[in-house]
């Protein structure tokens, strides 16, 4: 018996120890859906309307390529159809870079292998690696590009027509080409095809000479390759003369970008490439490779003459005519603009090899040489002097882009604003700049005549209706909320439909649509549901609700039917919780609304309403709070928390300390979750970065809100509060049948809620109270530990 007992104690000890080590499973990298009400870096999805000129309110924070497209439309030079197609492809590539490396994307070598299989019965060489390791720098580069395989495929078709399939000469040719492509990936040694015998047909000998040069090139022996290509380019009989001339330049480019020890050496090689390319450009007999010359020249000039190239590209893309080159030119131009700002995007930093575009270092771009560049640099510049620069340009040019730039920067204190406002009023409704200019104008007028501003704003929203992008609509709503002179007006402007709901994995403001192949994934199903156009609060409306409105006004807000039902419920839940914490009678009014609207809380609120006396009511409230971890005394901007009764395994339950001092980890204070992102687009409406007290509060209401907030900030973190209240409840009402479960829920709350230094002590107190006073209760048996 003693032995059995000893074994039992050991087992208990060991089990307890291992349980000590374990806790709820939580996977790494939780990704949470996130709502964006105004995208700041790019326009709303889909991007096709934007490319077609429906640009909405163009924010200065947009990535540069979007600003260039806006400039074109503002200037009355819309993108041609092929430019729209090209720019959409560019944006799609930039926003989904991972797709380029999908295992399912067909290799560019496949076209060559398919042609090869048609004309020779040689065994296939196996997968051709397209990437090669660069010497001594730990990265890889795409060695064999699509063009090389396309050229090989076209050549083999021609040679097969001349020599016929499976003939020895064709097989020899193919073996040579296989050897060339064996150098595409992998490590040394370099594979070089054998020279063709003197007896071989002249075409094969010419092809073989070219193949050998190509093998040297792909093998990384750029000097040997260049010499070989140069010899071919000087051979008037070789069919490869034009392309060989181009390959001489490519050898210098590879030298300059892959194999140079320092920037000076690299620049020298690129200048040599430039010289070769200019020579080809001037040689009419090499006309067939002139398209390739242009692309390579752009590549080289970007790196060694960035200032000149910036203006050259600006000249090309500021108006129509760039055609199929538009996407690359725009991409290069926007990258160079980034270099000017010292804001080169990841992956493109330091591509300049010679020259600098760093304005901060004192180098100034020549003024007025290039309107697009001046405008692009000014549009997102809000430093002192930038308004004067924009206004000066507008006075000089009277152009729409400069009007918009000036308006975006103007403040109501600028004496020149009146001219801008007058000019903006003249813009026709169908102008691509209309919404941007109107928003900026109304922003200026809101402080002077808020009522008229609100009326015009309502008209714009009504007339534009579904044609206004959601981000633009939400900006107008934000501006409207600022002008609100009544609670009803505030409630009309407060709800916003997100412009994007993302899964938060990549930080892009791009909607995450459920992948059809993952329909069984519960997370994607949830995401699809969240992408429905339901309204939520953005940070500005949440700030007002949380910090600026007293309880009596919150009651009015929920009793009014202006808010959508889901948001009425959210405000009522927050108001009820706040009223409970502050012992305010308005708790009954919020309960009444919740009993009517909130299916999840209806039974609980009905019980709450029936409670007699302050104590019974208070304990009824504690009971409700314990069973509903989704309750908290504030609303949160963005997507709604799912399931008020659900315990969140990432501890997003109830509330944390609400005090005005920073949290232990330096994170945002709990009630201050209604905080904007850094550089939030709504800052154009709220330059002080906070909303402040609304205009419609009555006498004494602002002071009431302040004192309620101060009292709220003195509240404990939820588990502590619930523990203290429940312990008092247990002491006062020992025989209340709910008390054991309440104490069990308290201990649970200390595990899943927000802790501080006191929580553990209170957890133990609740645990001890439960075990000592209710030893036989089932909830006592369930409460094995305190936390």
């Amino acid at each position: 018996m003693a032995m059995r007992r000893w074994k039992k104690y050991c087992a208990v000890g060991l089990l307890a120890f291992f349980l000590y080590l374990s806790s709820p499973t939580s996977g790494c990298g939780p990704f949470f859906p996130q709502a964006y009400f105004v995208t700041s870096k790019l326009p709303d999805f889909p991007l096709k309307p934007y490319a077609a000129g429906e640009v909405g309110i163009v924010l200065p924070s947009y990535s540069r390529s979007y600003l260039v497209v806006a400039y074109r439309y503002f200037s009355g030079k819309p993108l041609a159809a092929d430019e729209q197609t090209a720019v959409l492809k560019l944006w799609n590539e930039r926003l989904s870079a991972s797709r380029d490396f999908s295992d399912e994307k067909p290799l560019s070598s496949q076209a060559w292998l398919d042609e090869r299989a048609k004309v020779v019965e040689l065994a296939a060489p196996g997968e051709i690696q397209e990437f090669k390791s660069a010497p001594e720098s730990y990265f890889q580069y795409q060695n064999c590009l699509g063009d090389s395989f396309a050229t090989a495929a076209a050549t083999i078709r021609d040679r097969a027509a001349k020599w016929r399939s499976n003939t020895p000469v064709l097989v020899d040719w193919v073996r040579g080409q296989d050897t060339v492509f064996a150098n595409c990936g992998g490590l040394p040694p370099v594979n070089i095809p054998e020279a063709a015998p003197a007896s071989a047909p002249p075409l094969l000998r010419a092809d073989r000479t070219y193949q050998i040069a190509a093998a040297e090139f792909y093998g990384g022996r750029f000097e040997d390759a260049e010499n070989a290509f140069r010899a071919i380019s000087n051979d008037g009989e070789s069919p490869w003369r034009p392309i060989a001339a181009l390959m001489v330049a490519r050898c210098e480019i590879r030298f300059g970008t892959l194999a140079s020890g320092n920037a000076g050496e690299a620049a020298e090689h690129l200048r040599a490439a430039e010289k070769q390319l200019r020579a080809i450009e001037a040689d009419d007999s090499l006309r067939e490779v002139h398209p390739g010359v242009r692309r390579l020249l752009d590549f080289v000039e970007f790196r060694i003459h960035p200032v000149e190239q910036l203006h050259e590209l600006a000249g090309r893309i500021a108006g129509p005519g760039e055609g199929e080159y538009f996407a690359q030119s725009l991409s290069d131009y926007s990258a160079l603009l980034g270099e000017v700002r010292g804001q080169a995007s990841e992956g493109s930093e330091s591509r300049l090899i010679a020259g600098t575009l760093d304005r901060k270092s004192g180098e100034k771009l020549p003024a007025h040489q290039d309107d697009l560049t001046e405008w692009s640099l000014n549009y997102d510049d809000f430093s002192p002097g930038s308004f004067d620069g924009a206004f000066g340009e507008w006075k000089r040019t009277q152009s729409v882009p400069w009007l918009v730039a000036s308006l975006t920067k103007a403040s109501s204190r600028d004496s020149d604003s009146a001219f801008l406002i007058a000019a903006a009023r003249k813009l026709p409704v169908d102008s691509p700049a209309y919404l941007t200019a109107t928003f900026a104008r109304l922003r200026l007028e809101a402080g002077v005549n808020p009522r008229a501003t609100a009326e015009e704003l309502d008209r714009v929203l009504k007339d534009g209706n579904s044609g206004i992008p959601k981000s633009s609509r939400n900006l107008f709503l934000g501006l409207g909320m600022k002008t609100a002179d009544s609670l009803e007006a505030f409630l009309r402007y407060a709800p916003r439909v997100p412009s994007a709901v993302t899964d938060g994995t990549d930080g892009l403001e791009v909607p995450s649509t459920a992948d059809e192949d993952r329909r069984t994934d519960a997370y994607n199903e949830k995401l699809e549901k969240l992408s429905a156009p339901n309204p939520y609060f953005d940070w500005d409306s949440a700030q007002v609700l949380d910090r600026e409105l007293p309880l009596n006004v919150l009651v009015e807000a929920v009793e009014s039917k202006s808010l959508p039902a889901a948001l009425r419920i959210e405000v009522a839940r927050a108001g009820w919780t706040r009223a409970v914490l502050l012992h305010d009678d308005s708790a009954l009014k919020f309960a009444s609304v919740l009993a009517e609207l909130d299916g999840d809380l209806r039974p609980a609120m009905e019980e709450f309403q029936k409670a007699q006396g302050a104590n019974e009511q208070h304990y009824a409230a504690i009971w409700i709070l314990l069973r509903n971890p989704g309750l908290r005394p504030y609303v949160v901007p963005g997507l709604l928390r799912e399931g008020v009764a659900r315990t969140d395994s990432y501890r997003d339950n109830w509330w944390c300390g609400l005090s005005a001092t920073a949290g232990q980890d330096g994170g945002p204070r709990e009630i201050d979750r209604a905080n904007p992102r850094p550089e939030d687009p709504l800052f154009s409406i709220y330059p002080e970065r906070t909303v402040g007290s609304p205009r419609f509060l009555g006498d004494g209401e602002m002071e009431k809100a302040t004192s309620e907030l101060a009292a709220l900030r003195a509240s404990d973190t939820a588990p502590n509060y619930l523990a203290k209240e429940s312990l008092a409840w247990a002491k006062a009402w020992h025989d209340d049948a709910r008390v054991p479960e309440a104490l069990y829920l308290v201990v649970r709350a200390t595990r899943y809620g927000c802790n501080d230094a006191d929580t553990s002590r209170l957890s133990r107190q609740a645990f001890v109270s439960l075990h000592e006073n209710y030893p036989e209760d089932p909830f006592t048996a369930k409460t094995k530990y305190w936390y």
Partner: protein
Amino acid sequence: MAKFEVTRNSTRFALAMAVLALAASLASVGSANHRAAGVSGRGKLPLLMLWAWERPEDLRGVDPQAAGVAFLARTLYLSGEGVGVRPRLQPLRVAVGAPLVAVVRIETTFGKAPTYSARQRTATADVVMEAARTPGLRGVQIDFDARASEREFYRALLFDVRNRINPDILLSITAGASWCIGDDWIEGLPIDEAVPMLFRMGVDQRNIGIYLGEGRDFRAKACHASLGLSTDEVRGALPKGRRIWMFSPRAWDAESLALAQKEAEKWQ
């Protein structure tokens, strides 16, 4: 964290404490081994490792005795049955003799849901092994934010890699901080260390901050050798005496390197 039942029987209590003490002493030996493996054993890395991500980086000025470089070598996209491979496409220059770790990042959230089949796992391990053959490497680090449903695949992958990799090469993984605190799934993995990533933690930031601020250490022994930090996020209390792996959101420059060095010294 759970506490023991409070009982009134001192004999029972004493026995439970004895068992606990025995287990704790075994745990501390294991922890020391993990620490030893990270610092003085396999791989021999300095106390500061700089992550060099997908951007041009010139770290030739960094003293190899002072800091090593962990460079993103490959990014794998698991989709359907396939493994898409993105090599490092941006140049990296390091000083002669710099301690190097090749980082292989695994993504599973693009494209089709991966099958996590044995074949896919082998293909993934093949790519890791290819990266491990980079000359001069001291270690390989796998960066995979594995969801709960992916852990079995990840565990099996790590065993595959361990069985194939040169025993002199350190095998490290990045780990969400919650793996190191509230989870024991990484115990028993065939790794030399797990680096708790204490930046960009999102919703976990508050909880982890509170946990560490109370002076507590990570529960998982594998997480006792290193810490993962970022130059643009300030940390409160951290366990000391760890290797620091430092991330910079922009290309390393003199200022960020100095900051990294200072942080590494602060947490020794």
